[in-house]
């Protein structure tokens, strides 16, 4: 039983990170039907910014959780700026172009950002400081759930509650929902659609950056390539849950994380990915739009 709980918590941790990144994919897709392949790179950039800021903070004598908070805030701001710029230079000029064009532009940006970090930083793996300290009260259960996992779970839950409030309760959220439903109609009723799209990118990037900081301080290393694999997994989670649906992304992330963890724990970690992607295939056969996705009617 203890083993089951261990695997469950490990899957939950992994899944909540997938969910954080998947939200960015799904929100962007919901509004402009674009798969933002450069999203994984934003996650990676978030981790790198946190690494640099944490280094500077330590020099200036900050310690403990304060470093984590400062680094995370810096990462969020920086990554949001990247997301905003990305949309502005790579996607906005292509609005109205055939759907394939922004997709190719997204792949291009992904390759560009990876190589930019590779050249500007290093191709090596870099140690990431253990920004999440081991809490005293967690020690008795540390072998089941460590402090970093706890921090990751709590942070994701809080972030998702805030995101839900933003979308359901605020005026901006209403505008986002309106834009998602019908872009030209939203424009007609006076919503600045371009600004809403920018905002979507900013929010998605901020979530990815939070994920990046959490993961990096959990596993203790960063590299210019980490965004690619995380991006693939998060994209899978978004599709699994139903791309375009926000609760779907969260659910998809958790389902994917738990599947991987249980597959590794009870079967073999050789087949971790086989189970994860097998599940994806199965769900897409039964529900082509994903678990919570709504099939859009295509008018031909």
């Amino acid at each position: 039983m203890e083993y089951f709980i261990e695997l469950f918590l490990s899957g939950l941790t992994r899944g909540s990170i997938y969910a954080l990144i998947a939200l960015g994919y799904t929100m962007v897709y919901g509004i402009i039907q674009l798969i933002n392949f450069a999203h994984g790179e934003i996650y990676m950039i978030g981790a790198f910014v946190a690494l640099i800021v944490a280094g500077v903070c330590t020099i200036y004598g900050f310690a403990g959780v304060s470093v984590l908070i400062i680094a995370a805030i810096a990462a969020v701001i920086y990554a949001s700026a990247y997301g905003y710029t990305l949309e502005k230079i790579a996607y906005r000029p292509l609005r109205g172009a055939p759907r394939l064009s922004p997709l190719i532009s997204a792949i291009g940006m992904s390759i560009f950002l990876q190589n930019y970090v590779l050249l500007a930083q290093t191709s090596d793996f870099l140690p990431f400081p253990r920004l999440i300290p081991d809490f005293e009260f967690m020690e008795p259960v540390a072998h089941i759930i460590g402090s970093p996992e706890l921090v990751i779970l709590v942070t994701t839950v809080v972030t998702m509650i805030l995101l839900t409030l933003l979308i359901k309760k605020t005026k901006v959220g209403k505008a986002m929902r309106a834009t998602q439903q019908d872009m030209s109609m939203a424009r007609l009723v006076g919503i600045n659609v371009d600004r809403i799209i920018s905002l979507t990118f900013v929010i998605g990037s901020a979530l990815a950056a939070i994920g990046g900081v959490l993961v990096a301080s959990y596993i203790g290393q960063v590299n210019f390539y980490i965004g690619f694999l995380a991006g693939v997994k998060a994209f899978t989670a978004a599709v699994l849950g139903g791309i375009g649906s926000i609760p779907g992304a969260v659910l998809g992330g958790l389902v994917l994380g738990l599947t991987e963890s249980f597959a590794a724990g009870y079967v073999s970690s050789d087949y971790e990915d086989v189970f994860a992607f097998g599940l994806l295939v199965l769900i897409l056969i039964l529900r082509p739009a994903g678990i919570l996705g709504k099939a859009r009617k295509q008018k031909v």
Partner: protein
Amino acid sequence: MKKFTVLLSSMALFLSLAANGFAADTIKLGVAGPHSGDLAPYGIPAMKAAQLVVKKINAAGGVLGKQVELLIQDDQCKPEIATNTATKLVTDGADVVLGHICSGATKAALGIYNDARIPVMSPSATNPGLTQTGDYPNFFRTIASDDMQAQLAVDFAINNLKVKKVAVLHDKGDYGKGFAEFAKKYLDESGKVEVVLFEGITPGAMDYSSIVQKVRREKAEALIFGGYHPEASKLVSQMARKRLKTLFISDDGVKDASFLKVAGAAADGAYVTGPLDLSKVPLNAAAIAEFKAEYGADPGAFFQEGYSAALALLNAIEQAGSTDYDAVTNALRTKYVETPVGNVKFDSKGDAEGVGFAMYKVENGAFAEVK
């Protein structure tokens, strides 16, 4: 066009005549390996090593009173080209061959040399089958084969660490999986140790906590990991996070400064195998100094092994008193020779004795050899 062809063929004829003209009274050392293409960095240092050795030996009067002549052929590490290379060297009358570099190319070429009864020595082909199958009695190497690391790791775990239950993990790559499979084989054969887990992990995955929990559940006393340092540092960090005291044993791919840097304190107490420390071998420093004086740069991969192979081959001819195949291979197997990789002779299968790996332990953020 016709004129050009005539010119070309007459030039070729002239060149071959010239080569035959000098052929009579030299010892011919063939050198084969990738000297062009993307794997050239693995072949060129051994070629330069051969040139340095030959230059030095010729200056000192040659072998058996004859000058040594180099026959250098490029195989680009491709098996299909390596067979042509081998045929060319055989036709050109090579007495011994230094090469090839890549295991695949070496394997393709060996049969041709074997039929022509030419001893071959590779500075770098580590595939275990090349020597262990016994198919190629003409083959020798100055580098340890891939399975020696696994053998060392297993012996160490059994004899020094005295563990009874071992988990074996790998990164699903050729190198890591090969190491892990050999380790499992030797563990099973020992009969003293139970392999409780044998699995591959996905390189680059976000976390390995599920597999770490599995290692705990199986109550493994030691974890043998085949792979490279990024995954190894992730594993040891997560084991530390989960308060797991399992001993960590890994391979040369982990014996890297990055492992110490990235894993930090979690790396302490980890065991890794790595090549023997050659800095105390006198000829090693001399060979590197020779290279630096000639080329003004640090030698690349397999330079020492190439240098040693050239020395060993020419020494064997000297000891045998002729270039006769049986006499030369016998000399290689019985007479010790002082080389940059140590004082070596070759066992019956062709592997160099006294060449290989040592066990290192991470202590206070550095690798220390375990005696």
